[in-house]
Structures are given as C-alpha cells and as structure tokens.
C-alpha cells in the first residue's frame, strides 16, 4: 500500500516533497537530494516535464527512487501521451511497485521550451483518473483484459485554491473526486486565510478527499513578484514581499526568511487542522526541506517513513 495513503488513513500529517528529473541523463544528483530527504517526508513527488520544459521522465526517476528504497509519487500528464502510452507507463510503474500517481492535465507545449511539440490531451486529469480505475478493474484503455493480478493505484489530482471564479474550480474538483481522486494537492498557498474560501467550497460540494496544501519557500522578493505576475493561482501577500525586500536591504538572507515563513505556515496549517498535510515545492532547494520541517516541528512517524528496501528491485514484474 502507498505510504502516503497509509499516512493519510492513519490521520498523520502527511508530507510530500517535489523533485524534478534532470534535463539530462544523470540521475545521481537527484538521488543524492533524495538521500537528504530520507526519513523526513512520506513521499517524493516527481514532476512530469513541469511547465512543459523537457526533462527525463517522471517514470524513469520514480523507478530509480523506488529501487533506492524511496516512495515516489508518479506525476502523469496528458500532454505528451495518448491513453495507450499512459496506460503502458502506468502498468510499468505498477510493475516496479510505484502505485501513487498524481494525475494532471499538463502545461501546454506552447508555454514550454519545445514549442513545436504536438500537444496530445487525449485524456485530461479526469480521464487519467478514470484510466487508473479501468486498470484496477483489470482492463486496458480499450476494455481488453489485462493478464495477471490487476494493479492497485492511489491516485490524486491538483487543485488551485486561489481561483476566480471559485465555483468553477470546485466543480472541476468534484469531477476529479468522482473520477476517483483520493488526495488533492494544491497550487502553492502563502497564507492560511487564502485557503479558507476554497476549503469552504470543497466542503459545501461534499468533496471528502484529503488535501495537501502546496508550499513554496520563497527565496526573494523578486521571485515572489515574478510568480504573482506570471504563475496562475499564485498570490503572495504584499506583506511577505516587503519583508523579503527589507531582509535583503538589511543585509540578511531572504531565502532563510522565506524558509521560516513557509515553516510558520506549515505549522499553522497543521495546528488549525486546515489540511491533511503539505506538499513542499522547493524548486531546486530540496535540501532545505528537512530544515523547514524541523522549524515547523513536523516529524513524520518512523513507521511510514521511507526505509531502505533490499527487496525493492525484485518486487516488480512478478504479476504473472
């Protein structure tokens, strides 16, 4: 069973951290980063060419992480693969013992770094969630029977709490929940208050799916301003931008302040029981995540922490 699933079912405060595969063929730096996070987070969430920028595949790094004894979360977007390619990758993931999947529609190639790439979108996030269920029922995307034991997945989806019109976002989430999303991971939030209208809407719509709040530790006032202007669904409060700028002017470390602000938010979200956990997107500064969690006073329970698994690599491919 997925460690994230177990943590959520046990009512633990779940912690996942985002990692990106390299734009290249060397996984070693990513695996080193993962070592720093060992025992500090429940799962490592591996992006699938985020922002439509070409990288090695999520499935590839997830497999390497799995073999190194971590619990990866596979991100699957519908941007580059039709339903056959998605189903093939999902079966491959399952064969390697990767069962936690974040289903995303995916950023359009037109906003990425290979702009002439043909967008696919045969399935969107809802369609990929439905595909997980088909595979679990022992059928492929054409309704044909699969051989061997059917795979088991723990599928999740993304949410954008700061969204206008909010009811449209909630309706979309309802579709995701109905399609089988069992956890929701939000776009980064920067204050507990900005989550409240969203959580109320989720509640009113009867969506009963654990929510992991997205957390981005800010590195500078410039980064915050850039994200406010360019990244959909991001709203960093002006007071935080000012504080980061003041820190820099005073010769301090805005990155350290950003980390402290993120830690404070994590602690507040947990104390007020606003969400089931957090998803930390450190954007290249993954090694600072343990420090952030330390400051927030979040320690994951050993029982569900990733532990080295000698048998991990022999686990796959034995369904027949």
């Amino acid at each position: 069973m997925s460690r994230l699933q177990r943590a959520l079912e046990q009512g633990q405060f779940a912690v996942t951290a985002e990692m990106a595969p390299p734009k290249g063929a060397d996984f070693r730096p990513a695996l080193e980063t993962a070592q720093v996070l060992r025992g500090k987070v429940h799962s490592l969430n591996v992006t699938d060419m985020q922002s439509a920028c070409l990288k090695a595949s999520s499935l590839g790094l997830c497999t390497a992480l799995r073999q190194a004894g971590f619990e990866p979360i596979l991100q699957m977007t519908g941007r580059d693969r039709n339903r056959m390619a998605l189903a093939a990758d999902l079966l491959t993931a399952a064969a390697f013992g990767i069962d936690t999947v974040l289903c995303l529609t995916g950023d359009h190639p037109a906003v990425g770094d290979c702009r002439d790439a043909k967008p696919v979108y045969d399935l969107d996030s809802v369609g990929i969630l439905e595909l997980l269920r088909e595979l679990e029922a022992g059928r492929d995307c054409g309704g044909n029977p699969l051989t061997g034991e059917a795979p088991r997945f723990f599928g999740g989806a993304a949410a954008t709490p700061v969204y206008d019109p909010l009811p449209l976002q909630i309706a979309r989430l309802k579709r995701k929940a109905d399609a089988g999303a069992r956890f929701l991971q939000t776009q980064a939030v920067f204050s507990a208050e900005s989550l409240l209208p969203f959580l109320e809407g989720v509640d009113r719509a009867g969506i009963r799916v654990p929510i992991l709040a997205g957390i981005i530790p800010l590195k500078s006032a410039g980064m915050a301003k850039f994200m406010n202007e360019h990244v959909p669904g991001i709203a960093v409060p002006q007071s935080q931008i000012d504080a980061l700028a003041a820190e820099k002017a005073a010769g301090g470390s805005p990155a350290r302040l950003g980390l402290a602000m993120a830690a404070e938010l994590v602690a507040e979200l947990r104390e007020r029981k606003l969400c089931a956990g957090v998803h930390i997107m450190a954007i290249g500064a993954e090694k600072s995540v343990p420090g952030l969690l330390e400051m927030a006073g979040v320690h994951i329970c050993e029982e569900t922490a990733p532990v080295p698994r000698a048998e991990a690599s022999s686990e796959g491919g034995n369904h027949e």
Partner: protein
Amino acid sequence: MIITRKKPEEALLSMLQGAKRVAIVGCGSCAAACQTGGEKEIGEMKAFLEARGFQVAATVLPDECCHKMLVKRDLKVLRGLDVDAVVGLACGDGVQTVADNVDLPVYPANDTLFLGQVERVGIFHEYCRMCGDCVLGVTGGICPVTRCAKGLVNGPCGGQRNGKCEVDPENDCAWVLIYRRLEKLGKLDALLSPTGGRRPAAHPAHLNLREVRK
C-alpha cells in the same frame, strides 16, 4: 464557414514552375467570403499571373467548389483548351474536387485554416473542430473542444489568469466563458454533468445519407 488565407505569391509561383497556360478556378461560397476565391480575387490572380508571363486560358467560378457534380459541370469549359495547370482559389476540399474532375496538375493558391465564425467582414474565429460528438448542449453553447486550447471537455486546467488562457493570453479561457454563460442561464448544474467523450474521428470520414435512410 471554411476559412482560407492566400498563400504567399512565391509559394504559388514555385508550384507553377514550368507551366505556361493556366486556368483559374475559384469558389463562390466560403472562399469568396474569405476574399480568397471570389470574382474579385480571380481577377486579381489573372492579372498577377499574366504580369508574370503566364497565359490565363480560362477562369471558372463554381457556386461551391466542394460540390463534385457542380464543379464537373462548370469545368466543361476547359475541354479542348490547351491548359497545362489549374490554380485553385478554394479551400483544400475545393481544390481536390477540381482535381477529381481534370487530368491536370491542380495547385492550391490558398491555405485552409479552420471552420470558423464570420464575426464581421474579414474577421473570423475558429469555433468548431468537427469532433463528431457535439457537447454544446451542456456547455452553454460554447465549444470547449475548440475554444479551450487543450480541448478539455471535463472543465478547466489550472492555467487561466484573469479569464485569459495560459496558452495565449489573447484568448479568453473557454471554461470561464462557459461558466459565465451557464451562470447567466441559471444552468450551473451542467458543470457537473458528464459532457460525453471526445472521439478523435478516424480519417477519412464519410457520410452517406442514402445508406442512412435505408
């Protein structure tokens, strides 16, 4: 309407290399409205080709260039004429329909862009991708297959900002448009109803009403 745009002159001239006597076939329907194949454009094309040393043996303007029987009838005027190429001022369908009717090389003078609405003279917007499984009934009469850059039928991606699409901020996010429209119609419940599957059609598609009626 099928929206077309004139190819660059050089592109047409390079196709016509080696030809001397040509015929021009336009289209009195969509291409005429797109200012790419009506009477005026045929005249302009004639003058352009003559200025480049071609002889224009005939000009033909079928009411609809995508209608095989009609085009066959209208192209009878080419019989017995010494013509070594035909320039088609229609959409891709029209140009092929001309080619179906003559044993001559047929060259497209236009690029065929999309199926669109004529907002007003000379302004066109893509409105339908002809998916074969129309969902307009539950999307407030606004097509997500076409007007959402990702063709999403189950609701929006997370990428809109201020109602504009992440892919091209010049475009409205189709799903925000759909939401506003359903809100106005008092039919927001439709946002939760399945919109049906978008099935990429196998090509080429055919429809035979005679067989359907049988």
